[in-house]
């Protein structure tokens, strides 16, 4: 992943010059948050996407939700939620999991509208997701397909933070202990309904605040 390489900001400037004017190019105008910056000085964008499956090549995004983390708090006026209008009918399984029916999905917006909106929000912010590989996988795929370049971003994965914390404490854990809702319960955070993109984004943002090692920590301590 690009973000792990040194000189990510060089890469950003190079990409920006290379790309034609498009939403990704506009996104790249804002500098990436500095790795040495303190978390409390940064803005994060907690993102959750609901998808029809796990494979970015075959599956599609059904809905997206975000909230911003600013001053280590979540101002809820930042809440953003979009249903995506599908190209083909939804399968029964996904309707069951996400409670999104064809009728609702039909009321959604095309991805061509939603993706630029998302990139605009992400500009200058750190992406925050639980099991971020899924979000990054889908966004990268979309950016490559549409804008002919990967998504260059800094990302924090709350699942990874939780795993590191458990390892540091020498606690034994199973895979399911790392699920968003089990971690929240473990940390005494309230129960939210799962599999709604906005609820999950908020749940992730709160989990992030609870998992932060301390208020003065630097971004590089929590990056993927």
């Amino acid at each position, binding site marked *: 992943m690009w973000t792990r390489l040194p000189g990510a900001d060089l890469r950003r400037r190079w990409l920006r010059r290379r790309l034609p004017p498009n939403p990704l190019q506009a996104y790249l105008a804002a500098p990436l948050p500095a790795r040495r910056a303190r978390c409390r000085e940064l803005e994060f964008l907690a993102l959750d996407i609901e998808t029809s499956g796990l494979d970015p090549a075959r599956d599609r995004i059904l809905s997206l939700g975000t909230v911003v983390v600013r*001053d*280590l*708090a*979540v*101002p*809820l*006026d930042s*809440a*953003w*939620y*979009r*249903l995506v209008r599908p190209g083909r009918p939804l399968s029964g399984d996904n309707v069951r999991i996400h409670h999104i029916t064809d009728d609702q999905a039909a009321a*959604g*917006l095309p991805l061509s509208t939603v993706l630029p909106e998302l990139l605009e929000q992400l500009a200058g912010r750190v992406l925050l997701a639980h099991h971020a590989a899924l979000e990054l996988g889908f966004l990268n795929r979309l950016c490559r397909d549409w804008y002919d370049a990967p998504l260059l971003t800094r990302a924090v994965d709350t699942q990874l933070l939780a795993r590191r914390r458990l390892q540091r404490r020498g606690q034994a854990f199973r895979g399911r202990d790392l699920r968003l809702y089990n971690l929240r319960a473990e*940390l*005494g*955070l*309230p129960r*939210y*309904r799962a599999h*709604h993109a*906005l*609820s999950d984004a*908020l749940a992730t*943002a*709160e989990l992030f*605040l*609870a998992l932060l090692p301390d208020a003065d920590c630097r971004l590089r301590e929590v990056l993927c």
Partner: protein
Amino acid sequence: MEVELLEIRDFLADHAPFDVLSPDLLEVLPHQLVVRYLRRGTAFPPADATAPALYILRSGAVELRNSDGTLSDKLGEGDLYAGLCEADSSVSGVTVEDSLLYLLDCRALASLREASAAFDRQFAADRAERLRRAAAPRPGAGIDVLSLKAADLRHREPVTLDADMTIRQAAQLMSAQRVSSVLVTEGERLAGLITDSDLRHRCLARGLSPDSPARSIMTPDPVTIDGDELLAEALLCMTRMQVHHLPVLIQGRLAGMLTLSDLARHQGSSPVLLATDIQRADGIEALAQICRRLPELQLQLGLANTRPSYIGAAIASITDALTRRLLELAESRLGPAPVPYVWAAGGSQGRQEQTVHSDQDHALIISDDLRDTDREYFAELARFVSDGLNACGFPYCPGNAMASNPQWCQPLQVWHGYFNDWIERPQPKALMHASIFFDLRAIHGEPVLLQSLQEQVLARTRANRIFIAHLTAAALQHRPPLGFFRNFVFIHDGEHDATLDLKRRGLLPIVDLARIYALSEGIDAVNTRERLEAAIATGALGIDLGSSLLDALEFIAGLRIRHQARCLREGHSPDNYLPPDTLSGLERNHLKDAFRLIQSLQATLENRYQAGRFS
């Protein structure tokens, strides 16, 4: 596209004071909040707060302390801290668990209060205002008929008859007007009352000529009621006086007639009927049978939204009737009393604040003419009544504060000695006993015996600062809780109760305060309401604090009535232990207001009499 923050909206919709907001406002409100996470041990409100805000605790726990370091409150899920939006915010605290909080900017709070009158009311900064609402009848729980005025239920012009007319004319008038009673007048003055049963018993059965004057069969100078009195008062009057007809006077002029059947039409008759049945019962078996209807009566009165103070008085008036009947039965068995006496009820019956299944507290005050040979008579009498009350569902007093205890069955002179002792040498233990006997009310016999005792007692207590100081110290044993934390009652640092003892931690502190005011001001009332009203009248208790205390009393008594109704419906005997999870958020807040008020009045008295105790 619509962005719904369902989790947060649903949470707010479940919690006071947000639960009164309209769906529209509830939809918008979550978007105005900011979520914060404070680790355990963080100062609260957090030092880095940007703008003053209302804090809503979503999870975790916060302890708040007064400026002197004493614990003032402990917040759990759903609790609010509005201190930063109010003028005084001398409180500071710390999170004692990792806590998730929702912040609402004080300016957003202000506009929300402007947008919703119902919300604004719940937020009323004025505690007195909140308590007044808490004490008001519950909307939607049915109209409390008994809180209507006697004048409201007057259906027709009074049917009157001159005292010089004949019995026949009275009967003809009653038939023509289709009434069961007629008022007998002498000029403008109400002279008497004739009912159907008077025609039967006093005329026909005795073979009296129908041409005799009406005055010969009337009940002279009947009990009347003022049109401004509440129907509850009329009901208590009928129960006490054993009458079924009450002429209604408005500004002293005869205005109509209130009958038991008027009240029956409005389901308000049962206490009178119960008292009438008690009056007619011929033995303990029959009385016990009748008293089994008492819980049902309390339940009915509660459901009818009757004011708690009147329910307490109604239950007491029935216990009074029962006590009187038992004394009559005892006297018919043992013969008439050798010397005059008065049977006095103490405790909740004495104060007319009784609920079903309360313990008996009573005393016998006997004329000083008592001879040693008569003692056995009164011992028998007291035993009979006490056993009878027990058989009727009023258990023996665990502290044995009963006339059947020889210590409390004594001639007046001995009683004077007791009270002197309590007042001059107030020991904490003696005072606990004494509190029952400072609330005595004459039930049967010669009330003048009790009256003379009470007059002297009040004259002594009134001037006695040291006694009042000790009484205050004893009363401070009954402290209200600090509040609620989660589903526990938060007593003080490190102590939680699973249930709220409504009597010991809610009502008794107010009862004790009222007794202190009464004894220090020489107020002769024993009912807590009346004592407080009198203390307001003498200026000993400020009118604002006093009215709030009356509201707090009514509110807590109402909670007890509803809790006991729930016990009765669920088929177990009513108690005073309220589980906090049955309280709404609003009720919790009202209770907290009441607790704070009691605490501050207790603190005032404590300060006032601190010096007296040691001087």
